[in-house]
């Protein structure tokens, strides 16, 4: 039997199937925004029509990276900053898997920043959820790449001297073909955006604002928020790169002025994924790289032609 047979089963999926047997209760602090990501993801998955066995979730290190401990799937909790290269290569090896990477803002925009840029640039067909709480939570409240300028912490007692990372703009510039921001306080929008991101063919980057009630009380709870697609105040074309870039800049600036703007900011349905690009040049086989390993009857191809090169 092929292990790939788990994939393409057609049936109704209950969000509760995504509650794992090993650790059903999350250990995040009461009021933590991370609960909302978990809930939104559980809601999104039945929409997408995937069973837990078809999903590979790869996380880094941090409170948020515990996501897959509380979410039934093939979960891989890796090391700080490295979820993206693991996730994207798993997708290359078995494109039939639904691959979701997740982690915090320190994980994705700090220590893993280079991988974020290059994974977006290569436009792998996968989803990346960044739990953005503007703080290092698990290590108890140090300044993170998205902490506002002037943010005081034990490591920056006189206030951060750095302008924060602009995550949406960075995702766009690097090459992500779907960029959105949602907030823990907006569960319906969050579930919709995650479902869209997962179904998007290409690298989907979701900056998910998750309040940290324990270590980042300044950031409050990201309320009130505005969905830019629902508001008459904003009118821009999400498929237009320049308009998207301007909108993102405004959204990122406003966040630090206390105005929470969420929604879809950039969508490019036409950009080929890395796999498609490589297949077009013959550098990536049509069959999954891992397929041989699932098919016991397949014969290992050997060729003495390899030696011909050396004669």
């Amino acid at each position, binding site marked *: *039997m*092929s*292990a790939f*047979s*788990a*994939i393409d089963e057609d049936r109704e999926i209950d969000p509760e199937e995504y509650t*794992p*047997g*090993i*650790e059903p209760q999350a250990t995040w602090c009461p009021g933590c925004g991370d609960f909302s990501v978990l809930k939104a993801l559980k809601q999104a998955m039945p929409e997408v029509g995937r069973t*837990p*066995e*078809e999903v*590979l979730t*790869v996380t880094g290190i941090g409170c948020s990276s515990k996501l897959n*401990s509380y979410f039934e*799937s*093939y*979960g*891989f*909790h*890796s*090391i700080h900053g*490295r979820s993206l*290269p*693991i*996730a*994207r*290569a*798993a*997708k*290359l*090896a*078995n494109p*039939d*898997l639904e691959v979701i990477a997740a982690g915090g803002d320190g994980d994705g925009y700090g220590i893993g920043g*280079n*991988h974020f*840029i*290059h994974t977006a640039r290569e436009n792998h067909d996968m989803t990346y959820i960044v739990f953005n709480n503007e703080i290092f939570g698990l290590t108890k409240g140090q300044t993170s790449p998205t902490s506002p300028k002037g943010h005081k912490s034990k490591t920056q007692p006189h206030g951060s001297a750095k302008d924060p990372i602009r995550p949406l703009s960075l995702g766009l510039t690097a090459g992500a073909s779907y960029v959105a921001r949602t907030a823990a306080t907006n569960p319906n929008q969050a579930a919709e955006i995650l479902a869209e991101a997962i179904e998007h063919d290409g690298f989907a980057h979701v900056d998910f604002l998750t309040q940290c009630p324990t270590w980042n009380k300044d950031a409050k709870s990201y309320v009130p928020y505005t969905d830019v697609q629902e508001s008459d105040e904003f009118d821009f074309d999400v498929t237009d790169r320049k308009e998207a870039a301007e909108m993102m800049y405004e959204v990122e600036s406003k966040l630090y002025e206390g105005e929470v703007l969420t929604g879809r900011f950039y969508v490019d349905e036409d950009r080929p994924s890395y796999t498609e690009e*490589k297949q077009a040049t*013959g*550098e*990536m*086989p049509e069959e999954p*790289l*891992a*397929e*041989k*390993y*699932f098919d016991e009857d397949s014969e*290992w*191809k*050997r*060729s*003495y032609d*390899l*030696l011909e090169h*050396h*004669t």
Partner: protein
Amino acid sequence: MENDLNWAIGGEAGDGIDSTGKIFARALSRAGRHVFTSKDFASRIRGGYTAYKVRTAVDRVESVVDRLDILIALTERTIDENLDELRTGSVIIYDGEQTTMQDVEIPEDMIGLEVPLTDLAEGAGGAIMRNVVALGAACEVADFPVEYLDEALVKRFGEKGEAIVANNREAARLGRDYVHEETDCTSQFSLETTDEDYVLLNGDEAIGMAAIAAGCRFYAGYPITPATDIMEYLTGRIEAFGGAVVQAEDELSAINMALGAARAGARAMTGTSGPGIDLMSETFGLVATSETPLVIANVMRSGPSTGMPTKQEQGDLNAMLYGGHGEIPRFVLAPTTIGECFDRTVEAFNLAEKYQIPVYLTADLSMAVTEQTYPPERFDMDAVEIDRGKVVEGDAVDEWLDEKDRFRAHAATEDGVSPRALPGTPEAAHMTTGLEHDELGRRTEEEDVRVEQVQKRQRKVETAREREDFDYRAFGDSDAETLVLSWGSNEGAMREALEILDERGIDVRFLSVPYIYPRPDLTEEVQAAKTVIVVECNATGQFADLIEHDTLTRVERVTKYTGVRFMADELAEEIESAIAGQRAPPEVKR
């Protein structure tokens, strides 16, 4: 062994030295002669000094010697760099009409052979072919039929069209004819040809070829000398077998990508050299803790830091054995010849999957980037077996579910090896983490579970010790009082050193060890010897430390860290001095 010929072409980087040398090496291989090549090269694109050296004989050659018979010198510096190796009667081919070569002084006892290389090349269609003119001239000096160059020229220039190939053939003949007709240089050599048809390849290529044969379908890498050849070899070849090569943004990404592909079920590999190993150490522990099969090729170069990127060293043994924080179970395989690179690579993939463990596969620069001839049957593709270990699917999954139907991905089995279910497998979804975990992959800090999992992972190494054949190869006189041990590419030079020592009446037993961890227990062999000498290319004697540790016996260290491999004659001297207890530190040339 004077029935060998030592030949070299040298010039500046960018002069086409490498490809010209390779044409000659290929031609000799085609002519049924054994070839062993070496390179003097620097980490620069243009200028400096670079040389490609060929040693050839009818019998197998597996080392270099301190002697040059024919030298094609495109620059004056090439002659200076090789003065130590040139002998009475050595022939130096150069273009005396070239402005930079007009004042060249050829030492009196040597034969300076002036050939108007550029002039003749222009006659054949272009100055760019001057190296091929020189090849033709060298063929005449060596009494080697220039026709053997023809096929090698097709291999090199075939893609550029028939006219280019024809011009190059003409250029070679013009070089030959010039020496024959216009000079009084008569050949003192005669290169016998045979009916054998060899293959010529380097260690990186042998590793790449073996990886494909062993079912590797994913390679992630970041360019680094001298490991890039593996990546370049696989690119454009592995695709036909259903695989792919990706170039990552850095070595951190490369190893994590290989890890991701391995988890998804593809046999995966990454490759790098010292500086990349430093970065990869971060993920190394995760590979081991998550029990993911992974092969990491480390083509060693001179360190630390950026060190000497194009120079030989065996300095990473400790980094591979001990690299990474915490205690990480691992295997370290170190093939000792280019041919063995093929065997150990295949083995590395099987060990990785059978024991779900990271495997270091290491070659040193000397072996990785220099070529050697082998009979093609040395590389038996049909004999390659693929053992994927305990991968479970279908009903086999049920055996590994606990009472709540949860998959026991890290079950503490008797042999330490757990079942492995690839993502996509029904009924076996589970967590995996770099944190300490229980058998379900659930993070834990419970003392008994921690102990159980540490022991379980370590037990895989013990199981491998029992089940696998981690042995050495023995050469020389098995009753000798002197025992020489070495690892990596020193084997070839050491085997020839044995012959030299034998001629001097010195009996030596030589063990070449391709397994660093787990490694064979050499206690009996060491204790039976009067003098034990460990040969390696590093300053401190890292392998010697291991042998002393294992056998509780002091050993003599013959080390070399100049950036150049051991030569057979040099090694024979060193061994002789070590036996006499008179080994001096390496001489520094000023």
